[in-house]
Structure formats: C-alpha cells, structure tokens
C-alpha cells in the first residue's frame, strides 16, 4: 500500500484502470433450460434431475421458451439488438460437473448484441457498452467435503444463465460495483432474475488491466481475469487489489506487460482480501464450438410468445423512473430510490398517488412508516397487502393535519389487522388531531413544568435551543398521546418560553 501511494505520487507517472465484466445472471424460470426439472435452491442433492440434465445416453434437450423470453426482455432493456434466431452451440470441455462434457451455449450468434447500460456515478451517469448477452446452461457442483472423495450434485445442471459481457468501458472499482448493483436492480425489476446473491444467482468475472503513462509513453499490463466473484463487495475489493498489484508488479519489473506476459486467471481469497494466481492451463483451451444438432434454431419472429416480448415496449427502467419521481412528485433522490428498490412497491406508491395521496407525504410514509412495518413482518411494502386507496387516505389525513405524523404510525399498524379506512381507525384510537387551543395549552404547560432544564437551555444556550424546543414538542406529543398538532404545539411552546424570558428580563 505504502509503495503504491508513493508511486502514485511519483512525478511523471499516471495510470488508469481498464475493466470489462462478464456477469452470469440466473433467469427466473420455473424449469431448467433444456428439460422439465424444477429449479429450487438447496434441494436434496441430485433430486432435481432427469435423463436430459444427467446427460444420459439417448436423452435430448428441448429449449425452454420462457428463458429465451426473459433473455429478450433483459437484452432489450440493455439496448441490445435481438438476433432473429435463437441458435445453440456446443462448447466442449471435460469436467465432472458437466455430465455431457459439453455445455450448450450460444457462440457465434448470441441472442443479444451491442447495447449499453447507463450507470449513475459521482461524476454523473456513465455509459457502459454491452458487447453481447447469450444464453447457456449452468454446470453442476463438485463437493469436496469428504477427504479423498469428490461428490457431484447435478441439481444446478441446466439452470438457465444469461452471460452478459461488457465492453472494457469501466474505469474504477466503484464504477464496476455500481454497474453490478444497477444490473441486479434492472434484472430483478424486470422479473428476469431473482438476483439473489445468497443463492449464487449472479456471478461476476472482472477482466482488469492498467494503462500506465510514464514520460508520455503508455504501457499496458497483462489482463487478469478474476474468476467467479459472488458479491458486489468482492467485485470492488478484488478490482482495487488487482489495480494495486498490477501497478506494483509493473513498478518492480517494467517488462510486466500485455503481450509479453500471459493472460492470468486469478481467484479471489475473501479471507486474505487478495487475488491469487490460478494454476494456468498448459495450453489455450480449444472448446471446439459447433452448432448443436439436437436443437433446431428457433426463429424469434415466428414464435408468438417470443415475438410478443420482442414487440412489447420496454418498461420504464429504474433509473428513468427515479428521475421522474423526483421531477414529477418532488421526492428526494433517496426517498425515490428507497421506494424503487422493489418494483411492486413503486407501483403501489404510484397507485396511491393516483388515488389522491399527496406524493411527498406518501413518500415519507413509505420510507418511515410502511417500510418499518414491512421489515417487522419480513416482507416488502407491497406484500403487506394494504390497498393503494387506504394508503393514500392516510397520507391525505397527515397532509390535512387530521392526524399527526407520529399518530399515523399507530394508524398504519392498525390498518394491517383491519379492512377499515384510516379515518375510522384514527377515530377509534382517539388519534384525531385536537385543534382545541385550551387542551393544547394544558399539554404545553404540563410539558414546560415537567422539563425546566430544557426551558433553561432554550433561554441560555442559543446553540442548543432548537433541539430543546424539539424535545419539548415531543413531550407534548407524548402527554397528548399523539393527539396534539405538532406544528401548533411548537408555536405555543415558543410563545410560552418567550413569555418566561420576558419575565426574567
């Protein structure tokens, strides 16, 4: 690290990081890519298999159209050109978790080609080119738990994956991190993938090298491919480490250059937070790609379901919708992003607005009230099952000061167990805001009497005056069981304290 810092400040040397990403996204289909076996996580080993995915003699693959449909949907959202045909190729290599010893993939005609994804960053939105996205089947799993013995679980074999390959347009670990999270958001938002990291539904392989400029001459370090990362954090940390390592290696030996040293496959050691060189194969792999004679090419335009997906207008994507939420509803970027984290929740929000909810108040309630309730029940807000109309009505009550923001939390909780409207429930709970000046004065006086210290602070310490006023307002809400209008309570507190000050003077 220290060597690196020195080098980075060494005069005459600058460098930039060049990053390309390969991302495997598991598609959200019920069944596997070429057979009818169900896709379930953590099932009994080899229980989700059949002659086809076991690669038994005589068994034949049959294409899952739903997987192609989902791939088209994501491809379109990535601004890709969609191929006329879904064409399949065999990629040959021997490995025990690959029962046919070839993988069915797409080689020269990927389903999706030449698109891009816009990724928000600190310097604004950056556009990352997508070279291709193709469908392929996943392999099984080798399990090395027992010493001297390797077990093979073929439940995962045949899982539909979309492999997305970017152009080497990414320039930093942070941007790569942002790309991966943005892609996950997009894939889950479009229901193309569950996008679960725990279930290994997204896997990342960054290709990294550096362009170093010294004395006006550019040097490129060899590309290293970091294999099989399964978290966003690992993507960032591995690229950061790789950037440092490559710079150091080049500093130590200026012949550490692209073209002179081989392409490196490296693994990420999460415990040590370093990348490690993987045993390089003696020779370049020859995958002997050729068209799979067991699968006919499917003309996308000729198949009703696929054509429907092709012609469907692209849904409004999260980035665009987030900007619209800010512009149209006046939400903060943070609130908009929180609501957009899940598509059904964002849809519910918009339906509540349509039903008459004031957008800003409703957004605050989504972020502060509904999300907390949802967390308690380990669900999303949409999954709480409250109708847009009732959600909108509660927001309206807060806007009109019929209930206070804090009382609204209690009303919201009550709405979960009832089909009644929030107005009825607030009434029942006695939470309808009181406008009676006399009662409010009683509560304010009680709060002031009980909290002399806070009053003193307001009088003597201007820096903390505001906080103490807030504290007193909170006390009024407490004493009134949330029935007081916090705005008017604040006004009255200020008035009373000012009166005390006058007395002292």
């Amino acid at each position: 690290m220290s060597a690196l810092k020195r080098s980075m400040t060494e005069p005459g040397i600058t460098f930039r990081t060049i990053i390309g990403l390969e991302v495997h996204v598991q598609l959200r289909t019920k069944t596997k890519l070429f057979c009818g076996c169900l896709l379930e996580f953590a099932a009994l080993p080899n229980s989700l298999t059949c002659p086809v995915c076991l690669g038994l003699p005589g068994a034949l693959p049959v294409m899952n159209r739903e997987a192609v449909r989902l791939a088209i949907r994501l491809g379109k959202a990535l601004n890709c050109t969609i191929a006329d045909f879904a064409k399949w190729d065999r990629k040959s290599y021997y490995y025990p978790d690959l029962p046919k010893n070839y993988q069915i993939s797409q080689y020269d005609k990927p389903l999706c080609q030449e698109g891009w994804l816009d990724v928000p960053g600190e310097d604004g939105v950056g556009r990352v080119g997508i070279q291709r996205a193709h469908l392929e089947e996943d392999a099984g799993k080798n399990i090395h738990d027992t010493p001297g013995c390797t077990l093979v679980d073929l439940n995962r074999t045949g899982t539909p994956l979309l492999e997305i390959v970017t152009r080497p347009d990414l320039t930093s670990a942070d941007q790569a991190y942002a790309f991966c999270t943005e892609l996950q958001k997009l894939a889950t938002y479009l229901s193309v993938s569950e996008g679960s990291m725990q279930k290994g539904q997204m896997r990342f392989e960054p290709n990294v090298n550096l362009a170093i400029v010294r004395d006006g001459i550019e040097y490129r370090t060899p590309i290293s491919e970091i294999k099989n990362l399964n978290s966003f954090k690992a993507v960032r940390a591995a690229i950061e480490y790789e950037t440092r390592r490559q710079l150091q290696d080049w500093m130590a030996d200026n012949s550490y250059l692209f073209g002179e040293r081989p392409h490196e496959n490296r693994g990420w050691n999460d415990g040590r937070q370093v990348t490690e060189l993987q045993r390089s194969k003696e020779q370049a792999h020859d995958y002997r790609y050729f068209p799979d004679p067991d699968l006919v090419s499917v003309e996308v335009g000729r198949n009703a379901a696929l054509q429907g997906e092709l012609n469907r207008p692209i849904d409004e994507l999260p980035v665009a919708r987030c900007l619209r939420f800010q512009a149209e509803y006046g939400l903060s970027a943070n609130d908009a992003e929180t609501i957009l984290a899940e598509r059904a929740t964002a849809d519910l929000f918009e339906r509540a607005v349509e039903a008459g909810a004031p957008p800003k108040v409703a957004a605050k309630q989504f972020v502060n009230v509904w999300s907390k309730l949802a967390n308690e029940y380990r669900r999303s807000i949409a999954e709480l099952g409250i109708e847009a109309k009732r959600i909108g009505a509660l927001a309206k009550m807060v806007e009109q000061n019929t209930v206070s923001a804090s009382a609204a939390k209690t009303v919201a909780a009550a709405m979960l167990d009832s089909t009644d409207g929030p107005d009825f429930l607030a009434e029942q709970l006695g939470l309808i805001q009181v406008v009676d000046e006399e009662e409010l004065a009683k509560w304010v006086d009680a709060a002031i009497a009980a909290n002399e210290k806070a009053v003193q602070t307001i009088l003597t310490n201007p820096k903390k005056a505001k906080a103490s006023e807030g504290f007193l307002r909170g006390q009024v809400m407490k004493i009134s069981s949330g029935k007081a209008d916090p705005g008017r309570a604040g006004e009255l507190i200020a008035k009373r304290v000012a009166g005390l000050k006058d007395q002292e003077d």
Partner: protein
Amino acid sequence: MTTLTETVESIRAGQTTATQTIQACLERIEKNDGHLHAFVSVDSKRALARAELIDNALKAGKPVGPLAGAAVAVKDNLCTDFAATTCASRMLAEYRPPYNAHVVECLERAGAIVLGKTNLDEFAMGSSTENSGIGVTCNPWQPDHVPGGSSGGSAVAVAAGMVPAALGSDTGGSIRQPASFCGLVGLKPTYGRVSRYGLVAFASSLDQVGPFTRTAADAALMLEAIAGYDGRDSTCADQGVPRYAEKLGRSLEGVRIGLPAEYFGEGLHETVRASIDEATKVLVDLGAKLVEISLPHTSYAIACYYLIATAEASSNLARYDGIHYGHRSKNAQDIMELSASSRGEALGPEVKRRIMLGTYALSSGYYDAYYKKASQVRTLIAQDFAQAFEKVDAILSPVTPTTAFAIGEKTDDPLAMYLADIYTISANLAGICAVSVPCGFDPAGLPIGYQLMGAAFQEETVLAIAHQYQQHSDFHRRVPPL
C-alpha cells in the same frame, strides 16, 4: 416364414396365440442364435408375461393394438428400462437406462412385444457388425459372411426368422445395407419422421430409427407405429402420420422413377447391376416411367459424411468418461486420467478412430476447412435431391456396390469399409427417406437389394412402389438355409 402382417392377423383371428408366437420365436433363437449371434440379450420371461396379457385381453374381447402379440427385436442402442442398453460397447456393458426410447414405447403401446436387444457395430459405427464389443454377428445366408451393419443383429434376427420385424438405426446406411445383405426390406425414414428420444446418438443430424421386415407392407405397419411427433425431440417433425398400410395399393401407372447416372458407374459389381436392371424392368411393366437424372455432388458425399458424422460423434461420445455411469478405470491417479483411462480401456478401435477424426475436424484452425465446408457441401447434396424430385417421384439405385463380404475381409482397411457406404449416405445427408428392397441373389446365394429414395416425408411413395414390386417378385419369400 410368416410376415409381421400375417402374424398379427392370425393372432387376432384366434388361429394362434401371442404366447405360441413368442414361444416359436424363442425356439428359433434357441436353435440358431448360438452360431449367428444376432442378439445381445433376450428376455423370454418378460416377453411371455406380456404375451399372456395380450392373450387375456383378446380372450376378454378387449381392444388391442395393431401389432398385438408380434415379437420384435430392437437394436441395442435403443434405451430400454427392462434390459441393459450396451451399444455393443464395453463402456456400457452393464448400463441399464432408467427410461424407454420413444420407439420402444410406441411399439409396446401398439401391442408388440420386445423380445430382445440385437447386436451392432459399437455405437453404430461400422458396416459389418464386426466392430462389436460383444462378438461378430453372422449372415444366415452364409455364416462366414458379414450381415452388414451397423444394425446387423436386427437384420439377422428377421432374416433367420427369429422375429418378424426389428428396429435398427440408420446414420449412413446402417439399416438399408444390412437389409440388402440379408435379403430384407429396410426403411430409413425421413429425418424427423421418427423421434430419436432414447436412441443413443452417433451423429445426431443423421441418425434415424427404422424397421427391418420381409415386406414393404410390414414396414408400413411398423412405420405407422413409430412415426409421429414427440415433444422430447426438437428435431422431430410435427406432421401427421399417413396410414401407410392403406396406401400400398396405389398403381405405378405413370410413376416417374429416376436413375441417377452417378450411382451406376465404376465400382458397381456386375451381378448387382444385372439384378437391379431386372427389377427396373418389372417396375416398367407395372407402368412406371424411367427418367435419367443426375445428382452431381454425389462424389463428395463420402468425404462430407465422414466429416459431419465423426464431428458430431466426437461430441456425442464425450459423455462416456466413467464418472457418472459406464466403465470406470481402476488405474487412474487424477480426474483427467480417470476419464482418459476409462475411455481408453472401454472404447473400441473404430470408435476411437472416429472420435479422433471428428475432434480434429472441429478443432480451431480446422473447423472452417472441414466441418464448415462439409456442412456447405451437405446443402449442395440436399439441393441435388430437391431438384431431382421436381422431375421424379422416386429415385432408384443400388444399395451397395457388392453383396455381403467375408468376415475379416475388410477389417484391416477402414477406408474400403467406408467406401461401401457410397450409395446410402446421401439420403442421410439430404434428410430424405429411402428403402432397401430384395431383388435377387448372386451366384454364391447371397442376397441383392435395390434402393428407392423418396422426397422428405414421401415414405408412402417408396413403400407403395416397393409393395407393388413385391407383388410381382418372390425374393423376399426365400428362406436362408438354416
């Protein structure tokens, strides 16, 4: 010897029972298979149990299938869950599939009884059934001669009267050539006519399952049972199945039969040529018109075939690595060695030769020159046929240049063996249908056949021509001296 049609008719008429039929077949197997080696396995217990079920159903007046009670044999590269499926390879010597091939399901649904599994060249790679890991099958007409291959066992089972019908698979002639060598009708249906689900793949884009029978009428019955759409094979056509047996009576008046010049040139044995000439005369007498045609890319067919078939085979056979099933080497230190040794120990020399040829053809740097070029040539060959079928209804040619050769005669010369496929492989490359029909014997008493090729899904045309011919010839009625 009774035909399949006669067998099912006499069972249905109550003149005999399924049980008696099966017993008669078992007796013939008992008597002759000791020296002919047609079968890899026979399950008499299962067969008799099924026969009893059919007899009971008939007695009770319940409906039975069109093949009820008939014994059939299937090539041992068709998966069966009741018997090992060895592909005549040491690799799969003890392999028992957990499911039945589509065609096996079809036959048994039609009431046929699968009596046993028949010998073949290992993984269907060969033209003589000498490349079997289980043993050589002998030609019943002359037991020191080959029966042809790769479906030699199925051909011999029918020719020797052990069963009235059998299934084989045809990748480059593996049904038609042994049918011709054994004096039978052998049909290779159009690619996509019959589901390949459960047929252990040799070359996926060429493989097709079809029947061996004595008569074209029997072939029609068998094809009706096994043809048709199956969602488990993406290359299987979603096209209705005609009632082939009902369309056999069609007159040959005005039917145009093409004679391709390229199929009657150098290398064709004179006795074969003479028999085929006689057969064409019979067809002309029945009203057919002969048309001289040309299939100009014929000379490229063998090279094209041996590139595509071996390339696909090299990939299809990659799965036999001793890890998940099949032979596993006991002499391996690591995982790569385990695959290599298992394959090295269990696969035969012809299979290895073809895997190596195919691997080479697909290797980077060679793909364009070999596999890709061969695929382009294949398109040209298919176009030759498409153009020819604009002028003719069927194409008539020899099946093989010679009659059956002696066992051991060509085993040291793989190229000579490959050249024996010269007249049959084009139909596979073009994906069309073709049938081999008995039309004579050579002076040594070995059968001769001719081939009728039809456009895609025109099985009814070639079967009708073959049937009309058989109404006016008796070569298919002769019986080998057993």
